[in-house]
């Protein structure tokens, strides 16, 4: 059984090695899709058996509980869709000479490494190893962001690497301080950073040192999750990266970074009470919502608009985590999954629009619904999900988060958050309708959709509908994860 925990990490690495040897081909791209699918399947198998408590692998190095399994499902789902779409995307980029053979080969190697790093991050039992994996995602994605090698892409890459590296370095400092506190609480040096050891020792951790560590971890992982104050890289990187990578970064990487915060929070809450991180998460969550909503209003670039929408959603997730009840955490996890699939839809569509118009300006794109029903309808569905409308899952998750906030006595937070969400809603509707409806200029280029992109888009719509109608067995998983994180009510 332990071997199962290795699959989500090793399968993408095998795909990466194959791509390194053979270069970019249909075959290696398909192997990558299969590797991503294996992450999802492993998540599903582990999820069906997770009721009996956490499962460990390679000594105590890996750990799978309901929370990590949920994240595996998110990584696997979006990973499969994005790598599938990559086939058509890269072939089109090669055909249009936006990239060359070397660029395609690099893409083929880096994307599976990126997936493996995220899988390791959510499966690591040692929070030091988790840190190493999250930092590895920055290194793996750096050259994916700068894939087009334009001035703007280089600028985005530089900001991304510098800001995220600083953020993540602060998280490392926090991890070191937690290690120090754990050693003084009686842990042995080999396992002092293991999640299970930290949880068991939590009430003996020195509160002052733990608070210092928690503050640094919040700032550090917050940087990777797109939270204030280190959020400035996000819109640049997500708008410059190739469409399938944007989908992975917006839809999954942000939530993987937030997963790290949730893990740490479960320990810190036991050590110093829930108040400390609740205050911190509320401040960064609300500020993130405020900034994202204001920048959404003035946005003229559709890929940046989608990036700020991700920031808005991470702000909402942070606020939900601050509430911390069982309902809030379960809703947060549903929100993360639904948001991941929706971002795949809109970013893949945006990628095709960018390729067609050679621009990402909202004013350059009009009448998409009439010109290409495939992109038009799927993009519209993606926007409707992001707006939080029924019958999709983000309606249920946002409603549950609101209720949880009200129950937790955070009415004023709920009010502020709702205000920002409504502003973002209006901005998305205005820009979205301009792109989808509007009258196209005569002679607008035809929107071509590669087959694999179309297939991934249709699959995403089907998945979103299914998830909206019933979360099915996932709901049990989310609730187990929520209980694990100390959500009681």
């Amino acid at each position, binding site marked *: 059984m332990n071997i199962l925990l290795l699959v989500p990490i090793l399968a993408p690495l095998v795909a990466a090695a194959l791509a390194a040897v053979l270069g970019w081909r249909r075959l290696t791209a398909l192997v990558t899709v299969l590797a991503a699918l294996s992450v999802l399947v492993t998540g599903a198998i582990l999820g069906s058996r997770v009721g009996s408590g956490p499962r460990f692998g390679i000594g105590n190095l890996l750990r799978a509980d309901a929370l990590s399994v949920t994240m595996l499902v998110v990584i696997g789902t979006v990973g499969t869709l994005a790598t599938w779409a990559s086939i058509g995307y890269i072939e089109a980029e090669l055909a249009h000479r936006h990239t060359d053979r070397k660029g395609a080969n690099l893409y083929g190697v880096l994307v599976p490494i990126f997936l493996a790093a995220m899988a390791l991050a959510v499966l690591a039992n*040692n929070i030091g190893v988790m840190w*190493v994996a999250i930092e590895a995602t920055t290194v793996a994605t750096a050259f994916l962001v700068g894939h087009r090698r334009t001035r703007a892409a280089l600028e985005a890459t530089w*900001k991304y690497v510098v800001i995220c590296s600083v953020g993540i*370095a602060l998280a490392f400092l926090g991890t070191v301080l937690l*290690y120090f506190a754990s050693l003084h609480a009686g842990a042995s040096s080999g396992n002092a950073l293991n999640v299970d050891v930290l949880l068991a020792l939590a009430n003996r951790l020195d509160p002052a040192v733990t608070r210092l560590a928690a503050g640094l971890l919040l700032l550090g992982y917050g940087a990777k999750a797109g939270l204030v104050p280190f959020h400035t890289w996000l819109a640049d990187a997500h708008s410059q990266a190739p469409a399938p990578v944007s989908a992975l970064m917006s839809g999954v990487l942000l939530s993987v970074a937030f997963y790290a915060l949730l893990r740490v929070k479960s320990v810190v809450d036991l050590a110093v009470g829930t108040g400390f991180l609740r205050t911190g998460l509320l401040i960064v969550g609300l500020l993130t919502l405020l900034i994202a909503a204001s920048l959404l209003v003035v946005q003229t670039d559709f890929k940046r608009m989608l990036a700020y929408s991700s920031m808005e959603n991470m702000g909402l997730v942070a606020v939900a985590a601050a509430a911390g009840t069982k309902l809030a955490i379960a809703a947060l996890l549903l929100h993360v999954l639904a948001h991941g699939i929706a971002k795949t839809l809109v970013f893949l569509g945006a990628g095709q629009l960018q390729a067609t118009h050679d621009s990402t300006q909202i004013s350059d794109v009009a009448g998409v619904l009439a010109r290409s029903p495939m992109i038009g309808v799927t993009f519209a569905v993606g926007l409707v999900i992001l707006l939080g409308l029924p019958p999709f899952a983000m309606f249920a998750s946002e409603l549950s988060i609101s209720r949880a906030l009200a129950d937790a006595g955070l009415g004023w937070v709920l009010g502020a958050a709702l205000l920002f969400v409504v502003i973002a809603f209006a901005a998305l509707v205005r820009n979205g309708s301009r792109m989808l409806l509007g009258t196209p200029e005569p002679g607008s280029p035809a929107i071509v959709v590669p087959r694999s992109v179309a297939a991934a888009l249709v699959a995403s719509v089907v998945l979103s509908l299914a998830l909206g109608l019933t979360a099915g067995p996932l709901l049990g998983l989310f609730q187990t994860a929520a209980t694990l994180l100390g959500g009681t009510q």
Partner: protein
Amino acid sequence: MTQATYSGVLNLAAGAFLLAAVLIVWRRELRSIVVLLAWQGLALGVIPLTEGIYQDDAPLITVGLVVLLLRAVALPLLLARAIGTEAHERRESTPLVNTTTSLLITASLTVLAYAVTRPIIALDPSPATRAVPAAFAVILIAVFVMVSRRRALSQAVGFMMLDNGIAATAFLITAGVPVIVELGASLDVLFAVLVLGLLTGHMRRTFGGTDLDQLRELRG
């Protein structure tokens, strides 16, 4: 090694470590900044070496040697290569904050570091943890360097200084994190610096320089 020599060497190393950071704030010549960074790496390597010798801990001595090799030799060499030969790349552009103000800010950051690290010393008062404020000061100074300098390479220097500060903190408070974490962290840093080096090369070819003020395409 006696207790007195141990704490003496440790304090000397921590002092040199902080001094290198202050001098980096003072200097504008990129080449001398890289030399200072190498000295700082040396001071950092001395910390685990001293602890290793004092506690007769062979693995820690090995870690110390690796740190010395990586931070005092390999990373500065990488940076020196990235500086290249072009004359206008050798100097930091007109700074955003002038030198006097920079040094005053550095001083106040050092005081702040003493205030912030009080819980750490309170939990475990020992010669090693008493040197932690110096390491924390370097972390704060590094962040200041990163926000106040405009050359891409100065930001890379700031990042490496930040990392040195964190590594020093780790060695001082816990004699290093578990080997697997230390190994992964060092690899990540090495890769990050490699990525930054490659990027400066791309930037120089695309923009004709690495002044970050030229990065103005992405706004709002």
